[in-house]
């Protein structure tokens, strides 16, 4: 019953956050574009390739949550890579927040602290993971090469992207793992041991045999 209560609480909080934040698309896209722009090189890369992030784009009849990475050379637009900030970044943040808020037996003050610390950290991780395929694309696997990267780096970037970003379930699995690592383990260990599940004692599983 406790699991059912938690799941119900999570669904309520998550749904409420999604409904309340439905109009935040343009603002959040601008925030993401501004955050990542801090890490973009100011000078042109090899071959005169320039990178710029824009929230939304006049070229796309797309979602208000869209961030576009504009690849230019000599002022001419070569590629416009659309990035959906909602599914890649925003929904995972809401999922993490809802998990923390829905967790029982944690003081509200600690929940607030976890959200205030966890959301920005998770945002940074998600932005870095979202950048992985873009770096690979601009590093030699795409039609435009901004800076050539070694094969090993491409492999690592593609594995990160295909394993942690591309699967739609990862948008919720990553915040679930972050929640587990930040506020669930102590409770779950206590609860698990009460149910006979010891994470360190194999003899518990063999009944002492």
């Amino acid at each position, binding site marked *: 019953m406790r*699991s059912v209560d938690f*799941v119900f609480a999570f669904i309520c909080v*998550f749904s409420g956050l999604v409904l309340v934040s439905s109009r935040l698309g343009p603002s959040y896209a601008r925030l993401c574009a501004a955050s990542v722009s801090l890490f973009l090189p100011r000078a042109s890369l090899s071959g005169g390739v320039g990178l710029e992030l824009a929230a939304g784009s006049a070229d796309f009849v797309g979602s208000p949550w869209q961030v576009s990475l504009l690849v230019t050379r000599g002022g001419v637009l070569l590629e416009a890579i659309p990035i959906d900030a909602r*599914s890649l970044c925003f*929904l995972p943040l809401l*999922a993490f927040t809802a998990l923390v808020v829905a967790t029982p037996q944690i003081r509200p003050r600690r929940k607030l602290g976890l959200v205030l610390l966890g959301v920005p950290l998770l945002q940074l991780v998600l932005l870095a993971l979202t950048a992985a395929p873009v770096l690979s694309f601009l590093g030699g*696997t795409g039609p435009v090469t901004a800076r050539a990267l070694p*094969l090993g780096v*491409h*492999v690592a970037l*593609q*594995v990160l*992207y*295909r*394993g*942690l970003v*591309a*699967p*739609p*379930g*990862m*948008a*919720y*699995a990553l915040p*679930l793992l972050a929640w587990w*690592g930040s506020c669930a*383990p*102590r409770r779950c*260990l206590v609860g*698990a041991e009460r*149910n*006979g*599940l*010891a*994470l*360190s*004692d*194999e003899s*518990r*599983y*063999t*009944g002492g045999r």
Partner: protein
Amino acid sequence: MRLARGSRFAVRYALIAGGLLSLYAFPFELFGATSDPLEGYLQAFARIAGGALRLFDAAVSVRGTLIDGRFPLQVARNCDAAEVNILFAGAVLALPAPWRWKLLRVVIGLCLLVTANVARICALYFVGVYRASWFRSLHEEVFPLALVALGALSFVALTRSPTSELDAA
């Protein structure tokens, strides 16, 4: 340095799940592969989902990874919810328990998750037929959440007790 019990589980989990995910996500085409090594697996999955759909709609047919019918569906990577299966299996395998105990739970859990995923594909087909405007939201946001939640709940339920009715059976 002796790690805390939760940390030992976390390290084992990261290694197992990370290894399996890396294998699933490996870019073989960067090493000259001209076809997807998982093509056969995806075709088999499409046949299973198509077979289930045919129970409800005789117009459904399967060609390779394409489920054809009133609303065609292409079974691509990630349609098999491999990430959820890997995360679930990795969590069970990382537990300090006898291998028979763990393998039994992995098999049961994966059967449950695969069944749920086939049901998801069937639901997406009929959503595409009757409510196409809902398809994107259900496909990319709602159903992935449901599958991850099911994976987490399956882990909690199947690993609840070390000696349970499953072992007695």
